[in-house]
């Protein structure tokens, strides 16, 4: 499966008056394409902080102590705010607990929905152009390098081919642009005409001449062979409209209504038509500029142009591009194999422990260069570990040595303050200020982070070398061409207010809002809680994100509405193949949603597994406690509540954080933190009870009975 997002060793703290609160302590998880990962825990367990870190909206007093959040070849913790704009909302969207607080109360719902679409279209064009040109140039370079390696010189043909590819892509985009213009006008025509028909039928007074004029203008502008094809009917409408609008004043009549509604029908049908394949059409037009294809059926034309392109150009081009991809891949593998001993060397140096700043920077520098040059940039799906290695290693080394420099100073300040404080107390006064705890960097942890970065790189290289035999060059070439195609068509995306409105209405229908055309112009306060949450979901989906983060989306809603919203999120996930991170404190809600579940406590993931694992074979005492503290419809005996409250994370407890509230705690739980024990391939839990030497402890009777009952109920 495709990894969409990787969170590695994430550690986040907050600087507060009382000291440093360690909110998230070293958690790691992966998110795959099309799955739902649920994060469950009490309030204060760090689940919201994790999601906010992914969105890049942590509070100002937060410190990211370490770790990586890898998405599409970038480390989200280290990129600049400018770069984040391209990801936040666009690629990763979020739904919050209270729908009212995430909607603007004084903006109409429709405006809030279309705002992002229009903004996105503007910035998208520039990025697409850069990506297209850069990749094509790189491909040419790699092909030439391959030829040089085998003593051939095809530079001229390669250049010609690349140029041809470029020029027919430009031709395609030109055709697509014309089409998009007409299509946009047709969208507007459909909305306007339908609106006018409604008004006329209700006999509302309108400036009919002007309205008809604008419809006439839109109709003439949307004439395009693949939108509203020029025909006798269309010419008839145009002449009729011209006649009608030549006078100064018009009365509403059945004839006009019929005319406008038939125009509306025309536009509606035009929008439903199959679109031509511009990529192939562009090539055909470039080669045969004089041939007129207007009369041919669109799907037939698509087939014909496609065959034409494959025969005359594409198959050759793919063969040529394969050389480039192959060269690039082989080169990268060669450097990777070379780099492996170097990684070991650097790793040994850091693991040794005796390091100094100058030496470590020196030793890392060549490695960074090697890794950068080993990246195979022709692979569209980026391997994030390689891409972020540079910033990750330099960042963690900097943090370590900052700590080395800063710690003695902090300690000095602290000692000074402490002495002052003690003096006041000794002299019998009660000081009116609080002694702030010292802010020291945990050097061991930082050093461990450096080693982890190196180890991750090594693992990723070893995996690449292992899977080299199954590497399919043809697949990668198709990927490259698809990517180029996509970028080319992004260049001419047209997004006017009308198109955005039409899209928004479609989206509102998708999330189950009745009468979207009326709802479009309403304010958030006119919606009920469930409908508001639907609007928020629609806004989140408007930019077509990859990842949807839901932070307690149903906690503020009641049971029936909650069930509806959960069904909606599930449906959308299936339709769009979204990856969802679902955060909640209610395990019952999760059973329906999640493919995998992570149970968090005190900033750590204590149990991690598929939903069947966690519900049918829970292993961690905290999961037991969560399950047994919620009654289901059959429960009649006393609930087993969790005694006490979560620990104060300014002073994280020694050993297992849950030990103090855990009636199954062993002595070792108060001494040493348990590692993640693997129960099955998919199921992990951090509790000493799973250690082979631990006494055998059964899960509480109440859960065992419930699970048995559930199993029985199914049979």
């Amino acid at each position, binding site marked *: 499966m495709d990894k969409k997002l990787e969170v590695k060793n994430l550690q986040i703290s907050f600087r507060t008056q009382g000291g440093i609160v360690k909110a998230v302590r070293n958690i790691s998880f992966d998110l795959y394409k099309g799955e739902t990962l649920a994060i469950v825990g009490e309030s204060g367990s760090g689940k919201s902080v994790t999601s906010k870190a992914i969105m890049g909206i942590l509070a100002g007093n937060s410190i990211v102590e370490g770790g990586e959040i890898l998405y599409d070849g970038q480390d989200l913790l280290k990129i600049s705010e400018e770069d984040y704009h391209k990801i936040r909302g666009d690629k990763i969207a979020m739904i919050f607990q209270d729908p009212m607080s995430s909607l603007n109360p004084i903006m109409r719902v429709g405006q809030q929905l279309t705002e992002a679409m229009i903004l996105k279209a503007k910035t998208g064009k520039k990025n697409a152009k850069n990506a297209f040109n850069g990749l094509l140039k790189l491909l040419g370079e790699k092909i030439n390098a391959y030829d040089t390696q085998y003593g051939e010189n095809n530079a001229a043909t390669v250049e010609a081919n690349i140029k041809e590819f470029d020029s027919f892509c430009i031709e395609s985009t030109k055709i697509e642009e014309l089409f998009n213009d007409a299509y946009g006008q047709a969208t507007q025509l459909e909305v306007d005409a339908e609106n006018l028909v409604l008004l006329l039928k209700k006999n509302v007074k309108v400036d009919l001449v002007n309205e008809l004029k604008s419809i006439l203008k839109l109709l003439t502008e949307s004439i395009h062979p693949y939108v509203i094809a020029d025909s006798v009917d269309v010419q008839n409408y145009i002449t009729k409209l011209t006649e009608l609008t030549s006078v100064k004043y018009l009365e509403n009549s059945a004839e006009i209504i019929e005319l406008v509604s038939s125009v509306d029908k025309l536009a509606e049908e035009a929008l439903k038509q199959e679109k031509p394949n511009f990529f192939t059409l562009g090539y055909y037009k470039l080669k045969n500029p004089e041939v007129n294809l207007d009369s041919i059926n669109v799907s037939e034309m698509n087939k014909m142009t496609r065959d034409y392109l494959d025969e005359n150009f594409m198959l050759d081009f793919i063969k040529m591009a394969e050389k480039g991809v192959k060269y690039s891949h082989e080169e990268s593998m060669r450097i990777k194999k070379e780099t492996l001993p170097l990684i070991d060397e650097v790793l040994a140096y850091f693991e040794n422990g005796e390091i100094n700043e100058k030496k470590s920077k020196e030793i890392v520098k060549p490695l960074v260069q090697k890794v950068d040059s080993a990246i195979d940039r022709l692979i569209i799906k980026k391997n994030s570990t390689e891409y972020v290695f540079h910033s990750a290693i330099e960042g963690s080394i900097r943090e370590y040595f900052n700590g080395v420099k800063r710690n003695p100073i902090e300690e000095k300040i602290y000692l000074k303050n402490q002495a002052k404080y003690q003096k006041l107390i000794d002299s019998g006064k009660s000081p009116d200020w609080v002694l702030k705890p010292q802010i020291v960097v945990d050097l061991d942890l930082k050093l461990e982070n450096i080693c982890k970065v190196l180890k991750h790189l090594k693992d990723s290289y070893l995996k690449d070398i292992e899977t080299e035999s199954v590497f399919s060059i043809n697949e990668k070439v198709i990927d490259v061409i698809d990517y180029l195609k996509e970028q080319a068509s992004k260049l001419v995306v047209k997004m006017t207010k009308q198109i955005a409105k039409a899209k928004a209405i479609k989206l509102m229908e998708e999330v189950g809002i009745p009468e979207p055309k009326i709802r479009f112009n309403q304010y958030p306060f006119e919606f009920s809680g469930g409908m508001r949450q639907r609007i928020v979901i629609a806004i989140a989906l408007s930019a077509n994100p990859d990842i949807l983060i839901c932070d307690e989306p149903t906690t503020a*809603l*009641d049971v029936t509405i909650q069930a509806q919203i959960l069904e909606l999120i599930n449906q959308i996930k299936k339709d769009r193949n979204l990856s969802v991170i679902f955060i909640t404190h209610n395990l019952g809600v999760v*059973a*329906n949603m999640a493919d995998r579940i992570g149970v968090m406590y005190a900033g750590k993931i204590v149990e991690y597994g598929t939903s069947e694992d966690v*519900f049918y074979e829970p292993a961690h005492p905290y999961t037991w406690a969560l399950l047994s503290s*919620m009654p289901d419809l059959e429960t009649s005996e006393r609930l087993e*509540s969790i005694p006490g409250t979560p620990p104060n994370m300014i002073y994280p407890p020694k050993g297992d954080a849950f030990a103090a509230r855990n009636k199954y705690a062993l002595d070792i739980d108060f001494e040493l933190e348990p590692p993640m024990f693997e129960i099955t391939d998919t199921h992990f839990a951090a509790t000493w009870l799973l250690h082979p030497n631990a006494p055998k402890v059964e899960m509480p009777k109440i859960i065992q009975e419930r699970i048995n009952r559930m199993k029985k109920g*199914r049979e």
Partner: protein
Amino acid sequence: MENKEVLLKVENLQQYFKSGKYENRAVDKVSFEVYKGEVFGLVGESGCGKTTTGRSIIRLYDITGGSVYYKGERICAGTRSYKDAIAKAKKDLKEGLITEEQFVEIYEANKVEIEMAKADHKKWRRTNKGNNLINEIQMIFQDPIASLDPRMTVRDIIAEGLIIRGIKDKDYIDQQVYKILDTVGLVQEHASRYPHEFSGGQRQRIGIARAIIMNPELIIADEPISALDVSIQAQVINLLHELSEKMGLTILFIAHDLAVVKYFSDRIAVMYFGKIVELATSDELFKHPFHPYTRSLLSAIPVPDPITEKNRKRVTYNPMLDHDYSSEAPTMREVYPGHFVLCNTEEFERYQKECEETK
């Protein structure tokens, strides 16, 4: 059931709010009885009037119509129904359906009722003097943070009720506060702290302590656990359970989480848009739900079981499609002893048939 003592009796309770030109019928002719020592659950979606019902009973609102009896005394009374009767009589008189004498008779009778209702309503006003009957009803609110004064210490918050009652002996008050703190699982040191120093569950305990220090017989718990974490919810439910057993409390439990209500209550009433649509013992209600709204509500409960959950079919409720009340308006009927459903004759017969088949 029949032998049980009725502690609280709500009869045709109406609570209307004016919003602009129209009247918002938050609670529309709701009737039920709460027996001594039981936990009576009131469920429904948000906005269906369950909280308003609770608040009307404890006289946080002046009710529009109907009456509430506590230990046989009428503690709230509204005049709307009598006024409506007079208005109807006037209309009938105009149309010539009744004679002048009949009208005068109706008018006089209702006028007397109105006077009596007003007198009763005034009599049981919440006063700060003496041991009032209505002080035996106390309320626990939903949001523990919003319902505690941030500038008062826990001792002040808990003792406030006693002080209002007129007790001046400080030692006695302290003694009572400490005793109550102990009962709800807090310690004496907590008395001098402020609400913000506590966790959510502890705050709700303070809210409970404030209610039970008045030695109430009836507690109206308005979603006492909705704003709390799952693990804390269990603590509070257990506490309420213990208290109701130890002190013999009667609880009117208002919530929207059906699993919790089922676990906690002896009898349950389901509300929908200001009306009670079904009332039965909790086992009976969950085994044999008759009203389509109850069925849809039950089908929406999430279960901690992935496989069942994935196959769960939610039933939707649409009053326009599910009922045909054009010929006959629905009334509360007893389908099975102790099981009431809001239905008309046709539905009543259908439900009874279903009932015989399943039993």
